[in-house]
């Protein structure tokens, strides 16, 4: 690029979410994230985190991409790019999956649901435009990709989320974890259909609600009027997901790493393991058979000083990994982290050290999650 061309580039505009004014009214501190102004916190990350673990938190995740893939053979076509058994998904069931580059590197992680219309796919906000371009390039022309920009996405998470939501949207308590469906909300004379799944990113029971952007504020107000519900910012979303051992794309996963390294082998369905035939399947199935060269693991941290993303991990004098997410776990009451550690050093219980500001901090490979999941699984809950 010639230098003068650079000056002709327009500054990238930071976009507003449908609930932008609502967040500001609620006292949110707004930050830029994934190209949007987003609420990082309202009353404080620690309080919001604990509230969500004990009650119910409302998260605006409208920055995420909501895509609808339609057309005959959409599931089979998508299977060329993801390692999950998508064609076997029954209507109303969802699956966590990964968008794979040709070499098997992870381009994004996503939720894929078999909806009546087609495949409803929720992707990360920061890479949604790249995802859409990649899908358009690799999926056959007869598969339509609809970016549902006119919809907001709200997540209601926590042990009391079901009590609050079923008061506002009757019938949602019939869903189990990783199930989804359409539910009517509002006056019987003019009900609005909402697409609701029992899923989330906190490790708690909860729901994700796709709502027309025009109705998002009304729904958010109704939910926050429930005694169990408070609005929760991105800061607590990050500490909640870290305690739950859930990876954050762009940090704990990136295009250089394949799914087995990324501790997401569970997303490679049995049939796909046997048959292969997805992007990078040779590399990925090799890693499954022989073990990955490095792996994303949980790390407990000695003392009180957090270790953060980017800190190198050592076994003695040898660097064997790097921290990819680190912070303080409010429910754990101590610093926690995740990172990549080379084979031979990544078994649970292995004593390692992270380097922070020139000092060594003792860390230990730990079981994930740090805080047990409390999902409403079929056949498990009382």
């Amino acid at each position, binding site marked *: 690029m010639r230098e003068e061309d650079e000056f002709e580039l327009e500054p990238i505009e930071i976009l507003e979410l449908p609930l932008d004014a609502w967040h500001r009214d609620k006292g949110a501190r707004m930050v830029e994230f994934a190209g949007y102004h987003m609420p*990082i*916190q309202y009353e*404080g*990350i*620690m309080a919001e*985190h604990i509230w969500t673990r004990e009650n119910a938190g409302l998260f605006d995740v409208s920055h995420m991409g909501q895509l609808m893939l339609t057309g005959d053979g959409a599931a089979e076509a998508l299977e060329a790019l993801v390692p999950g058994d998508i064609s076997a998904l029954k209507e109303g069931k969802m699956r966590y999956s990964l968008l794979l580059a040709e070499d098997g590197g992870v381009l994004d992680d996503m939720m894929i649901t078999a909806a009546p219309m087609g495949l409803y796919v929720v992707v990360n906000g920061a890479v949604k435009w790249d995802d859409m371009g990649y899908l358009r390039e690799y999926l056959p022309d007869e598969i339509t990709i609809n970016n549902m920009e006119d919809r907001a996405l709200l997540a209601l998470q926590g042990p009391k989320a079901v009590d609050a939501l079923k008061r506002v949207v009757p019938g949602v308590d019939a869903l189990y974890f990783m199930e989804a469906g359409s539910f009517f909300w509002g006056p019987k004379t003019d009900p609005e259909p909402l697409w609701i799944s029992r899923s989330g990113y906190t490790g708690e029971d909860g729901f994700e609600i796709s709502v027309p952007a025009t109705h998002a504020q009304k729904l958010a107000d109704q939910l926050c009027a429930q005694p169990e519900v408070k609005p929760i910012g991105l*800061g607590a979303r*990050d*500490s909640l997901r870290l305690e739950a051992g859930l990876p954050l794309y762009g940090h704990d996963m990136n295009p250089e790493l394949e799914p087995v390294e990324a501790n997401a082998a569970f997303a490679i369905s049995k049939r796909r393991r046997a048959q292969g035939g997805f992007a990078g399947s040779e590399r990925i199935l090799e890693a499954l058979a022989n073990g990955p060269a490095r792996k994303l693991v949980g790390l407990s941290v000695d003392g*009180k*000083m*957090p270790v*953060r993303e980017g800190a190198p991990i050592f076994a003695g004098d040898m660097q064997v990994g790097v921290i990819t997410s680190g*912070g*303080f776990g*409010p429910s754990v009451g101590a*610093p926690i982290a995740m990172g990549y550690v080379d084979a031979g050093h990544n078994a649970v219980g292995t004593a390692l050290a992270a380097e922070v*500001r020139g000092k060594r901090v003792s860390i230990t490979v730990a079981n994930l999650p740090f805080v047990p999941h409390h999902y409403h699984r079929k056949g498990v809950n009382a």
Partner: protein
Amino acid sequence: MTRYFTEDHEWIDVDGDSATVGITQYAQGQLGDIVFAEVPAAGATLKKGGDAAVVESVKAASDVYAPVSGTVIDSNAALEGDPALVNSDPEGEGWFFKLTLSDISELNSLMDAAAYKAFVDGL
């Protein structure tokens, strides 16, 4: 005793050639819940504007800079057990360290309370 402020949101209480340093009410509000503070050891020499301490919230680590040059004579041991003191009383019990100043004239470049308030109001 006179209190000065920096544009990086440190305060410094000066008494003769010694002083106490912490971060301001505004700074703690911006940082949010403090979970860890690392303070310099007695004997450490600090240079005006250089790294002096680290304060960590749930989300991120932030540097605390030395408002003036000098030698550390004491640091706040209470922060190790109760880093949230920086949130609850940033300009009192949540102080970070004390030092002897090596160049009192460096104080001339700092703000007084009124100037700092105007500075924060403009942010």
